């Protein structure tokens, strides 16, 4: 529990924000929300839009649930959470369709599936229901960013090695390609979802070799 009279940016609050980015990362440490991480990381642009969408939804859902926490009847707690999360996700989806149509088409069903992202319900149950709105918002946004960072790192390598581009711009010189008399070819496997799983695995490995306390006995 966060104390009543905490300053807005105390160390405790800041820790709520930074913890999910490294030691409490929802994807690499808690292994939550992996499904969408595999699906939307073939290109940078959809990955970033997805990351922003999830940050918005985790932040606001934690905030709203925390505001309502003393009024929610315990028996329909989960349903109330779902309604709030679902409403936010639909809003995000509608806004994307209106103002980022191309990307919303690439993300297709995965925006809708943010509802089922375990990170969101996990943070609401574990944190927002027992804390004040401000720390809940920070915790939600922090977890969203922790998720988004992994998405962007995975998407960076997948797009670079799989398509030779970043944000759709050619990065690997054209004359390197075998088709143009060079020695290089894009790795088609990178575009397929299994490679994302392997990439996440590699990130987990690297993170744990730096952070020994994350290794389970």
């Amino acid at each position, binding site marked *: 529990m966060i104390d009543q009279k905490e300053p807005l940016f105390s160390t405790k609050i800041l820790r709520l924000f930074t913890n999910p980015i490294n030691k409490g990362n929802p994807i690499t440490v808690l292994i939550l929300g992996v499904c969408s991480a595999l699906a939307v990381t*073939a290109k940078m642009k959809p990955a970033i839009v997805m990351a922003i969408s999830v940050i918005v939804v985790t932040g606001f859902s934690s905030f709203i649930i925390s505001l309502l926490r003393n*009024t*929610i*009847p*315990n*028996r*329909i707690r989960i*349903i*109330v959470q779902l*309604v*709030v999360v679902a*409403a936010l996700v*639909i*809003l995000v989806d*509608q*806004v994307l*369709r*209106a*103002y980022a*149509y191309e990307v919303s088409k690439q993300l*297709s069903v995965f925006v809708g599936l943010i509802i089922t992202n375990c990170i969101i319900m996990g943070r609401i149950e574990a944190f927002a229901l027992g804390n004040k709105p401000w720390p809940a918002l920070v915790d939600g946004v922090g977890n969203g960013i922790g998720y988004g960072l992994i998405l962007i790192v995975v998407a960076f390598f997948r797009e670079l090695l799989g398509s030779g581009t970043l944000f759709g711009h050619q990065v690997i010189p054209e004359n390197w390609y075998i088709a143009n008399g060079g020695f290089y070819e894009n790795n*088609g496997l990178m*575009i*397929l979802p299994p490679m994302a799983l392997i990439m996440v695995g590699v990130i987990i490995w690297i993170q744990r070799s730096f952070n020994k306390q994350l290794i389970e006995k």
Partner: protein
Amino acid sequence: MNKNSNTYTFLYAAGLVVVVASALAIASIGLKKPQEKNIAIEKKSNILSTVGKGITGDEIKDKDAYIEAQYDKYIVESFIVNGHGERKEGNAFQIDMKEEYNKIKDIKQALEEEKKSALRKSLNLPVFIYKDDDARLKCIIPVYGAGLWGPLWGYLALNDDFNTVYGAIFDHKGETPGLGAEIATRAFAGQFVGKQIFDGRTFTSIKVVKGGAPKTDLHGVDAISGGTITSRGVEEMLHDCLNEYNTFFAKNKQ
């Protein structure tokens, strides 16, 4: 009030639902206009890309305005025909090909000629007329079908002989990336240029040949390796949709 009482729970749930529902309704109404505009722009962009007048590079800043201007400039006419090649009233741009595709499927399954004929009469097939820079007319028609994971669709531009393909584009809802999804690439769609849908007077459509079509084949293109079902879907889509336009083509050929 007792938070654990049934009354409280019911009232809370009802109140929450009303609040959320109105918020969503307002958002949906407020955002409807830009959403519909996006869909219309995409459709126009697809039609223009078929004849190579879509957006090709990154240099165009205001893409929406560019597409609108190009569409108004090049697409000089659009109309609806039925399966008997007769013109119908209506706005060709508003036709939902998914509904027409369902009718085409019914036609394929219908056994009696009478039923087929009645279904053909109810078809709404859009035709877009494109006038190129040399004032030659080409007709652009939409096609719609089924792939492995979801719908496929595309546009086909035909020269004024209603036989030779001038350009084609295809798109899909969710074919496998790197395999079936390759139909959306220019490399695949480009193969259709110069192919013919009639052999003399018989309708042949364009086959998507597994293992590769010979270069001299006027009615076949190479399939996508690893995308067999999607390739077959494209072939079937072309055959079924063009088959319905057939009478219209025949009437206008002379």
